């Protein structure tokens, strides 16, 4: 823990957190397009909520941008064909979580020009709130930062909660990931258009964009494009993990705490990720659905790391071949190294929520597989926990399987699994893993 000198001007931040090696080398590389994979596997559930209902048949020809699955109710999103081609199969396919999920497999026409074929431009200024919400749902956009919460549900603020401020999350605090950074630099106008749409729908009167100070070009690009009325501002955040978590970014930018167990809306705040808003600002006026996304492919076992536009449904194997994955790759992570999940199969596809694909080799694993020691109660985990929990105590209780006590007295449910405690633990105790198990057991017990 550092000593704070109040007379020094510092970037906005929260207390605690860690400074891992950030590896933002790809932050200076412009977004590039990758070739289409010969086959795309498009899951029908890429968002939190009910899966979409398939509306095409095997053998049917589909156009890039065409709806291939309709939303099933309000808490659901449509799925669009990410390429022009033929529906080859509809059925269960492996997904990143390891579960089999209903997916549409499309054989891509090789001659496809990669243009979106379906879409009706519309005048968004003429739409009222309900029409906008419907239009947003039709884009199929879910939280593109990885949360995959349907955008229209999040922006549909119930009338009894008043939102005064929208926080735009451009922190991108996970190491290696730089796709949000490039979006802010290269698609600034899309982002600001998306922000205005989101403000109109949610009723927020002001917006603060938070960007970590290791992306000065993104801050400059946004500043240059801001409207003069002062309703939208950009603020530099200290480069620190997990600056981009909802609690911490709100704390850093607005100095407000979300009461334990509540949503940001309870204190009048709405948090949206920059990628989500940039795609909203791009797709909504064009009347298109989301068929591709920008993501970071990086890691020590990747020869050509960078930020790529990748069609939804691209199998990881194809993606990694395109960027030259080394044979030393041992661990493929979806998302960032702090919170991302590993995959067991390279046949799983990129989905709307995939913000990064990282390939780690032996050297990185060696650090992870260090022998573990008993807890020496060094207290480092308390010094870094952004929620001010006591991971040390939680870990000791987890070892004794006192899962109920962990929740009752030590706020287990407040842990959002950022991994700071595991990162610093000198005993290499898999704290986050223990907490996940404890939560799962508690959930099962509650359900039983």
């Amino acid at each position: 823990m550092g000593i704070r000198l109040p007379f020094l001007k510092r970037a906005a931040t929260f207390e605690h957190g860690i400074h891992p090696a950030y590896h933002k080398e790809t932050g200076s590389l412009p977004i590039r397009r990758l070739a289409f994979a010969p086959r795309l596997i498009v899951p029908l559930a890429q968002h939190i909520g009910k899966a979409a209902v398939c509306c095409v048949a095997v053998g049917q020809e589909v156009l890039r941008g065409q709806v291939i699955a309709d939303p099933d109710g309000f808490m659901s999103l449509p799925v669009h064909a990410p390429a022009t081609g033929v529906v080859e199969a509809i059925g269960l396919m492996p997904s990143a979580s390891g579960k089999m999920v209903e997916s549409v497999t499309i054989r891509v026409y090789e001659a496809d020009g990669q243009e979106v074929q379906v879409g009706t431009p519309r005048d968004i200024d003429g739409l009222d709130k309900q029409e906008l919400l419907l239009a947003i749902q039709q884009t199929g956009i879910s939280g593109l930062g990885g949360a995959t919460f349907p955008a229209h549900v999040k922006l549909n603020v119930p009338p009894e909660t008043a939102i005064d401020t929208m926080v735009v999350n451009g922190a991108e605090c996970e190491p290696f990931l730089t796709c949000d950074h490039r979006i802010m630099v290269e698609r600034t106008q899309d982002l600001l258009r998306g922000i205005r749409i989101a403000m109109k729908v949610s009723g927020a009167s002001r917006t603060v964009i938070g960007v970590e100070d290791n992306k000065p070009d993104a801050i400059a690009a946004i500043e240059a494009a801001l409207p003069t009325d002062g309703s939208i501002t950009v603020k530099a955040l200290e480069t620190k993990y997990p600056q981009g978590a909802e609690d911490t970014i709100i704390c850093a930018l607005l100095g407000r705490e979300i009461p334990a167990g509540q949503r940001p809306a309870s204190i009048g705040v709405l948090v949206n990720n920059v990628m989500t808003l940039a795609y909203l600002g791009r797709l909504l006026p064009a009347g298109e659905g989301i068929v591709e996304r920008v993501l970071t492919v990086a890691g020590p076992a990747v020869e050509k790391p960078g930020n790529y536009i990748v069609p939804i449904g691209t199998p990881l194997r194809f993606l990694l071949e395109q960027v030259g994955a080394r044979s030393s790759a041992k661990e493929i992570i979806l998302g960032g190294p702090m919170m991302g999940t590993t995959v067991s199969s390279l046949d799983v596809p990129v989905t709307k929520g995939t913000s990064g694909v990282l390939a780690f080799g032996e050297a990185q694993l060696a650090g992870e597989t260090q022998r573990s020691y008993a807890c020496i109660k060094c207290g480092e985990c308390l010094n870094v926990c952004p929620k001010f929990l006591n991971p040390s105590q939680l870990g000791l209780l987890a070892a004794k399987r006192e899962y109920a006590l962990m929740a009752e007295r030590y706020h287990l449910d407040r842990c959002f699994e950022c991994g700071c405690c595991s990162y610093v633990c000198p005993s290499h105790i898999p704290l986050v893993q223990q907490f996940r198990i404890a939560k799962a057991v508690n959930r099962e017990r509650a359900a039983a």
Partner: protein
Amino acid sequence: MSMELRTSPHQHSGRDVPVIMRNVVYSLLPICAFSVWQYGLSAAALIVTVTLACLVAERINNRISGAGNTLSDWSATITGVLLALTLPPAFPLWMGAVAGFAAIWLGKSLFGGLGQNPFNPALIGRAFVQAAFPTAISTWAPAFAAQRFGEFIPSSLAAPFMAPPDIASWVRQQGVDAFTGATPLARWKFENITPSAMDFLTGHITASAGETSAILILLCGLYLAARKFLDWRIPVAVLGSAMLLAWAFHLAQPERYPTPLFVLLSGGLMLGAWFMATDMATSPVTPRGIWLYGALIGILTVVIRYFGGLTEGVMYAILIANAAGPLLDQFNQPRILGGKRDKS
């Protein structure tokens, strides 16, 4: 490509238990070197003997418990070096070995090893020999004796279970001026004489092997704190509370109570504050718990020194605070972000 499935996070800071422990050992080396410079062969032999005893005790326990080799975590080495530094420089080596075994077995192995022990093992070792060998542990040797590098102080090589030879004749033979055989704390307590601050700085005082140079201990401690291998709040709380209390007493009755500076520099307070109280396994982890724990040590030290039968109070102050640690943690759980302050 064979895929590994793991849970996040997929990165680690790289700082692990052996790294922390090793750095503590490194930071103790200047203090050891100074002790050897002051007391020569006897101090060197004492540090080596006690440390080896701790390592042997740890290894034997590994064999018995089947818990694998734990010497590589460096924690037994720290216990050994720290324990040696709290003993009189001419402490009989066999008693030092007994202290080492007591430290590891009674202080650590009994509770399940690293991290499980409620009390600082080095202090358990010292408390054990304080009870077992009360005379030897209050027999002091003069610093900077002429033949200190050439010959052992006789008591060092005392045969086990025999009365250690008196070191007074050796001292006379060495021609050391004004050696009284009492520590500054004892001289203050029983004779009301306090040495000059200069004597503390140069180490021209009678004390345990590693306690003489408060300034050196401070520098070594600061190094560890700067590299974040110890929690700076603990020594600040210990020294701060001891100084404040000593200052209050001194203001009330200056002729009876010494200056706060004397209290800070004398005895084992510096070593205790920086290297014993900060022992991770036996100190609290919650922020408020840490401050209270440190304050408790500082206050108890002064109270024991002023009103107890002992001249020195740091060892018992820390052991008592160790015992209170878990309770301090339990009642001072941090307020979680967005939460209300807890009662327990």
